[in-house]
């Protein structure tokens, strides 16, 4: 009895429109795993020759020592890059990027930021991104591309020396790579916090609607 009423209720209450298509969900969660592996092993590598006056606690690094960190980093990079390419190609080919992320206007970003800070920003329609979301999601794609390219220029400063030169040389490319990591971590903190504040967005990324 109760199960019948439950499914009936679900049928009327649940939106029928798919918010996150299956390919987005699959790519998103693979990326989440790859990203965490890359960041934690990257911190391990950073600790061997820190750029700044701090190191990352061994509690949050991956690999146990420099060699282990490098092994993880250069293994997970394949997952990150392959998955990232699928995302970029599919996002461009299906028109999802254009539809979801454009246009972004300066006034739109300012208005939506103000609305968000005063608690007036609506999350009623999860299929439409506000201007702040558009800016952050488009921005993090650019950051993702830059972290891979700066990483390649650190890994292969002779074979890909023109790329390394583009990032200001080997030593500077390390700072670029670090800065992009910092941006991704900052994005992650906000992204996860907001997903928890608006649980239906998290549900949409798991079951699609």
């Amino acid at each position, binding site marked *: 009895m109760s199960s019948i009423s439950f499914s009936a209720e679900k049928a009327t209450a649940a939106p029928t429109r798919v918010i996150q298509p299956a390919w987005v969900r699959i790519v998103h969660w693979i990326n989440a795993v790859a990203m965490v592996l890359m960041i934690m092993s990257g911190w391990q590598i950073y600790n061997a*020759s820190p750029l700044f006056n701090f190191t990352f606690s061994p509690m949050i690094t991956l690999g146990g020592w420099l060699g282990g960190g490098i092994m993880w980093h250069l293994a997970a990079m394949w997952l990150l890059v392959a998955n990232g390419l699928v995302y970029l190609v599919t996002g461009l080919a299906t028109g999802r990027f254009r539809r979801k992320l454009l246009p972004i206007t300066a006034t739109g970003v300012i208005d939506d930021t103000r609305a968000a800070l005063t608690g007036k920003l609506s999350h009623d329609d999860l299929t439409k991104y506000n201007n702040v979301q558009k800016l952050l999601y488009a921005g993090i794609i650019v950051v993702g591309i830059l972290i891979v390219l700066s990483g390649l220029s650190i890994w292969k400063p002779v074979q890909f020396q023109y790329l390394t030169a583009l990032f200001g040389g080997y030593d500077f490319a*390390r700072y670029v790579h670090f800065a992009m990591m910092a941006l991704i971590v900052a994005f992650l903190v906000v992204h996860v916090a907001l997903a928890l504040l608006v649980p239906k967005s998290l549900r949409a990324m798991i079951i699609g609607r």
Partner: protein
Amino acid sequence: MISRFRSLIIPGVDKKLLVKDAAKLMPDLSRRRFIASGASLGALTLLTGCDVSDSLSADKMLAQISKFNDAVQAAIFNPNALAPTYSEKDIKRPFPFNGFYSEDEAPEIDGNDWKLEVSGLVQNKKSWTLAELHKLPEVSQITRHICVEGWSAIGSWQGTPLRDFLTLVGADTKAKYVWFRCAEDYTSPLDMPTALHPQTQMTFKFDNKILPRAYGFPMKIRVPTKLGFKNPKYVVSMEVTNDYKGGYWEDMGYNSFSGS
């Protein structure tokens, strides 16, 4: 002495002490789990609670991917791509000493007694004295030394191209590796395409002065297309071989090709 060196897996950091220190910071239960799971997977093991056998299979998978990465790097290695060169003013002074031991523990070699042993797939297996090697034509390079740890330093090295020496001794350049052994038992294999790269050098001088002890007297192999640990110092023998004989850091898990 050597066994003491081997316990120092992280340069300057004792791995066991490090694990002990980290474990002290943890609550009792997680401390026990952390130690049981080994340090190789670090926080990931801690989060997932996987046991030792899982970490072993992860290590196996990582070793496989590292081998795959060797093949990828060999494929993208361009024998004609030269490492960028720099000018005198870019040279790092003093150039950093680096090793798995401290500077005063570095091998101290008498150049008069020292001989370079040449073996394996070569026609002429004679040993070379330092005086004989110093007579070989000298080339110079100012290139960037990049350490596996991430730091880099520009240095100036003089010596004879390894590929010319390999031709001179009638080496089989179709062989897969040139394998180096050093005075302190450090070893490292170099793939033949890299050994034949025009900038790969048997180095006898740093900054136009005979190599000081810190930089590998009497001979180091300078390979500007590889990470620093693939540039052996205090070299006592080279063997041309088709067998992969491993190396000091390579056996501990550093990627074997480690090309830059």
